[in-house]
């Protein structure tokens, strides 16, 4: 992925320094990756995204699953080389707006046979998660742990269908999304009636959208807009509480921990992707 040269260089140097002192398994320090809280989902970020899901270089994010183990030449940007980009199984779990990746890293060992992808719009937050993936893979090389976790920078509100094919995903997590309080900004919310159609598109029937927030109004908003969408039905509370992901979502997300410390409320709602009806 093309990035700003200075930043990339900094990152390369950081990587090198980690390698040099033989502690390449050291976790990245969060303070180097902090970034202002909000990114505008409508603006033209110079984002890198594939033209279509099959153009996506998945192999570089999940090297252990690459179709052909490619001999990586380090300038990954070289044009149209015969680089294998495909992987042996598709990504099945997406953590949208993954932040610093707490959920991603908690899910990875619990779903060792599924590929999990964190998606985050903020550049340096994404870089942090990517560094942590690298470090955790190094720490767990003996067991091949965390080979199933990766993170990319993406504006999911615009480009989700560029990454995932129809019906590809089994789970989508929307954890503690930015609330965008102002009326005018409601279309900036990560859940809306129209955007729900895109979640339905990338989810397979039976797949689940997981939502959690500490903002009651946002919870109500998400419930209302997902319930109103004919492709989703709410998962009943009994079933919800049996889902192991719900507990992980409550306790392992960064935001979940913060709310815990502040003794705040956490509102959870799950929605199941229904089969498409027959054509009228």
């Amino acid at each position, binding site marked *: 992925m093309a990035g700003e040269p200075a930043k990339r260089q900094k990152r390369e140097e950081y990587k090198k320094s980690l390698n040099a002192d033989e502690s390449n398994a050291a976790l990245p320090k969060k303070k180097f990756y902090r970034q202002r809280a909000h990114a505008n989902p409508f*603006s*033209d*970020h110079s*984002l890198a995204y594939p033209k279509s899901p099959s*153009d996506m270089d998945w192999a570089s994010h999940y090297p252990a699953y690459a179709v052909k183990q490619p001999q990586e030449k380090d300038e990954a940007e070289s044009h149209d080389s015969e680089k294998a980009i495909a992987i042996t199984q598709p990504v099945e779990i997406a953590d949208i707006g993954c932040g610093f990746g707490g959920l991603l890293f908690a899910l990875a060992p619990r779903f060792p046979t599924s590929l999990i992808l964190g998606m985050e719009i903020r550049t340096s937050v994404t870089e942090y998660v990517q560094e942590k993936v690298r470090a955790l893979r190094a720490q767990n090389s003996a067991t091949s742990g965390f080979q199933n976790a990766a993170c990319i920078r993406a504006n999911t509100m615009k480009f989700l269908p560029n990454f995932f094919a129809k019906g590809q995903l089994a789970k989508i997590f929307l954890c503690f999304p930015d609330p965008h309080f102002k009326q*005018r900004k409601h279309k900036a919310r990560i859940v809306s009636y129209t955007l729900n159609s895109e979640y339905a598109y990338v989810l397979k029937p039976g797949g689940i959208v997981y939502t959690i927030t500490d903002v009651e109004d946002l919870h109500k908003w998400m419930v209302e807009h997902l319930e*109103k969408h*004919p492709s989703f039905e709410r998962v009943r509370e009994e079933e919800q509480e049996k889902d192991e992901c719900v507990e992980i979502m409550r306790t392992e997300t960064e935001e979940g921990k913060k709310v815990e410390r502040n003794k705040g409320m956490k509102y959870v709602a799950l929605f199941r992707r229904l089969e498409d*009806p027959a*054509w009228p």
Partner: protein
Amino acid sequence: MNMALPFQCLKAYRRSVKGKEETLLIGASGSRLVVVESSSGQGSTWPAEEEASKETEAPAEDEERPGKRIKLTPTNTNDSNSNKSNFSCLALSNDQQYIVAITGEDKCVRVFHIDSDYRIHQLSQRPMARRPCAITLTSDDSTILCADKFGDVYALPLLMSPDDGVQDQEVPPTTSTAEQPETPVEFKPSASVLTVHSGRNRKVLEEQIRQASLGQRKSKEPLKFKHELLLGHVSMLTDIVYANVNGRGYIVTSDRDEHVRVSRAPPQAHIIEGFCHGHEEFVNRLCLVSSGRLVSGGGDAQLFVWDWLNYRLLTTIDVRDAVLRFLKSQAELSSIVPANEEGFKVAVTGIWNVPRSDAQRDEILVTCEGVPAIFHFGFDEAGKKHEQAIPLNGNAIDVTVIQQSPDSCVAVASVDYVHKPGSLKDPREQKQDDQAIPTFTSGPDGQWQADSTLDTAAGFLTKQLSTAVGAAGLAGEVDLKAIQGLLYGTANLRKQPGTDPDQVA
């Protein structure tokens, strides 16, 4: 300079009235509509002239706080409406009974009927929450599909029922809690940017418009007519197509973020069937061609030809190269071509199907922003088979195509006679509105040539330009910037590198 606005929209169609076949030509120039029948040269303009001049004489005493309600509930028999907003889009109902139009500044969807005496009647005027960008109709003509700048598509009944448009109209559930629409119906600027020319008044007007938009934003009143949110992109929508294939209805939408999306038609418009992935720049136009294939184009060097029901790219057409070849072939235009041809970019502004009896071979006409030509491409599944550049006397603004017989078609173009050919901003030394509406015809060989069968009609339209505009008080110095803004802007859809706020260190 005494210049009138070129027609920014043009539509020709054949209809049969009381058993008589006739060809109508409709043009939109600024905030006016002009219609003419081609053989008799009879026609009219809208809004009617007396009304228009009355309006402009009225002093701009609109001092009311914009947030305050001015009674102006849209009704379905509002024939004497005035209009200060500029038309940006015209669509024809499939039964050819209705013209659906968008006016930009007031964000209105307007429905017109043209009677047998060629008088234009406005049947309804519905101000949307966001500025509409493109409209089409379902194949049964029951519903207008309106795509807006904010990325949403709304369904509106073509004809408003008598109880529609009343104050306490219940809003369908999908809109009641979605982003609360504004109510632009409350406010009408006392003039448009095209009718105010002194710098000071211009400022006042701009302020008025700005205030109004602030006022509107605060308003939480829902729209007062039936409308339903069908689908949405988080991007600016650029075009919308309705298709009916084997009894199944589809909506195809395109956006500034390279997407071509295929959804089901209502009542299942919430279901996305798939995407035609491949564009690397904004998509600006979609066109369903005779074979049923879809052609898309915008900021890319190629047009894409799709088997869209299977999301499969069949072939591409090098429109950029065709434009380059044309410019280089014209002595007075070759200077536009940059030394580094690789950096030359086109912005496709229009793609029109040329109806033919041969369903395997498709033909389209294509225009690009600021290029004084129409490009004709004939192609089949394997690729391009025919190409012709039809030179124009000014930049192509709009084109409309009608089938005269199974084997012959007529294309009517609207040409920018204000700016120099090839330029989006340099004015001509003198006006040449006699060349405003050239007509071309193409026989079975597919070659296009200049044609005179519609000259009477074109002449009438051109004449209306100066008289209508004169009546509206626009005959003086016309604000070139305003004209430029009205006619151009497609190239601005291209994303500029380095505009990422997130990347700023």
